[in-house]
């Protein structure tokens, strides 16, 4: 893979997001087109400036991005729809980045939007007989991995309850988050059991919503103020032997891998950007279930395996801590419109880098990292810098 200095520089021209929540009578194209218009306004660009578009969604189906464009304008540009589970948004951004870095186009839009499906969804990651055996309950699959993590590291349910408390506290400072009220440790621990040891408030809530980012070459930038550079964007799929029960993959006892897919995607991002975890001023980790935020922080290289619970207790991951994690509330506080989520994470890093994050602003942010994962499995790391 080429490093950032071997390709044309790609900058963030503008970003947009909708307020995430449940909206009866609205569809993904309503949210998607709203996020696009906001990103155009933020970029000080017009729709005719956009030369190509990638749209991430899990459930919107055929021509999902085209339906968003129908609400904004029909200009004949190539539109490609990206389904990459919960990394759909960051995968769309990565494709937009590649078009500009490779000098095919100068201004490209990435957008992710989702109208959350109501009721049970039979995941395509499981075979029909496994669905009959009930193996695709995602909190239960994460619960299996949590049991292993607890045994290996000594982490407790109280530890991952603190992740919820932190993220819901941050969400209160984010007007676009689905949840606007904090929760106490007791409320988390006493919430309904979903899959032992995970309670309701350890599982991220779904939501409807959209987020968009326009990327461009530096000479096409119109917006005044700090330019944000895309320093790396990586995407990996499963590595043989690593356990990922949410995607129906069990560990190989004979051939366990040297590194997992999160480590691999992070390592590639650090190599491409020339930065390491020690340089990151703000982080968006993947808290689809709260224990996963802990092991995610560890796999991304911010600390050793098993150290995250202690660092969390010490406040290291708070907004005013040494490594602020999920400053916008994360999936737990913001909600999880699957195809939009990863671009929502990137939106937050952009705001933090510009110094526009309001009451949740981290001081002196120069570089930040967003990590998302999805069924497949896949793992996607985006590093942005001023």
């Amino acid at each position, binding site marked *: 893979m080429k490093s950032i200095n071997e390709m044309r520089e790609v900058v963030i021209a503008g970003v947009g997001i909708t307020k995430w929540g449940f909206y009866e009578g609205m569809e993904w194209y309503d949210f998607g087109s709203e996020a696009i218009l906001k990103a155009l306004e933020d970029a000080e660009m017009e729709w005719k400036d956009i030369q190509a578009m990638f749209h991430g969604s899990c459930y919107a189906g055929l021509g999902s991005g085209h339906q968003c464009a129908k609400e904004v304008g029909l200009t004949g540009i190539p539109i490609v729809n990206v389904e990459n589970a919960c990394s759909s948004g960051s995968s769309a951004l990565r494709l937009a980045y590649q078009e500009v870095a490779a000098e095919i186009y100068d201004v490209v839009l990435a957008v992710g939007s989702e109208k959350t499906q109501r009721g049970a969804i039979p995941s395509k990651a499981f075979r029909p007989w496994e669905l009959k055996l009930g193996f695709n309950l995602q909190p239960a699959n994460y619960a299996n991995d949590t049991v292993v993590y607890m045994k290996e590291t000594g982490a407790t349910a109280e530890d991952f309850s603190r992740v919820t408390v932190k993220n819901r506290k941050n969400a209160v400072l984010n007007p676009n988050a689905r949840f606007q009220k904090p929760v106490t440790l007791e409320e988390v621990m006493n919430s*309904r059991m979903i899959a032992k040891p995970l309670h309701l408030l350890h599982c991220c809530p779904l939501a409807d919503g959209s987020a968009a980012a326009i990327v461009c070459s530096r000479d096409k930038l119109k917006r005044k103020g700090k330019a944000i550079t895309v320093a790396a964007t990586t995407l990996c799929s499963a590595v043989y032997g690593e356990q990922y029960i949410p995607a129906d993959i069990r560990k190989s006892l004979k051939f366990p891998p040297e590194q997992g897919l999160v480590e691999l995607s992070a390592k590639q991002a650090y190599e491409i950007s020339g930065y390491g975890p020690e340089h990151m001023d703000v982080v968006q980790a993947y808290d689809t279930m709260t224990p996963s935020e802990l092991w995610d922080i560890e796999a991304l290289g911010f600390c050793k395996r098993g150290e995250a619970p202690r660092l969390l207790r010490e406040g290291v991951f708070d907004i005013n801590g040494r490594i602020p994690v999920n400053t916008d509330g994360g999936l737990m506080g913001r909600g999880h419109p699957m195809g939009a989520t990863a671009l929502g994470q990137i939106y937050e890093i952009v705001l933090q880098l510009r110094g526009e994050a309001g009451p949740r602003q981290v001081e002196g942010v120069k570089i930040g990292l967003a990590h998302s994962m999805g069924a497949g499995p896949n793992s996607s790391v985006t590093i942005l810098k001023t």
Partner: protein
Amino acid sequence: MANEKKEIPVMEGLWTTPSSAGEEPQLVGSKCLSCGEVFFPKKPKAWCVHCQGTNLEDIELSRRGKISSFTVAMQPAGAFYKGPVPYAYGCVDLPEGVRVETLFTGCDFDELEVDMDVELVIEKLAEDDEGNEVITYKFKPIRK
């Protein structure tokens, strides 16, 4: 006149059916003769997803193993699961060097623990729409 209820496996070929008394059913996997990797369930194609070898043979797996992870699900993932709720499932490591995902049975779910010794049973999962009994493999703790 009611039809006699049939027993229908959740999928054909997951386990052996004993041909004589005294024999016990065993899970059926695949073993790659090039790299030695073992898979469950058995691979539908002669293709090893570890080494890309093409020489695989069926292997009957040990009936006993150890729990590597588990959970107790308080709600089903959807209507495609018709078994009892709550239900417990997780992974069991077998001596052939393969990790199997399975339902657990034959215990109070609060007793389940990592490293617990368990053994294979074939049991009812649920009744299908025609009133037939859908059966599946499960693992239950071995009483000392």
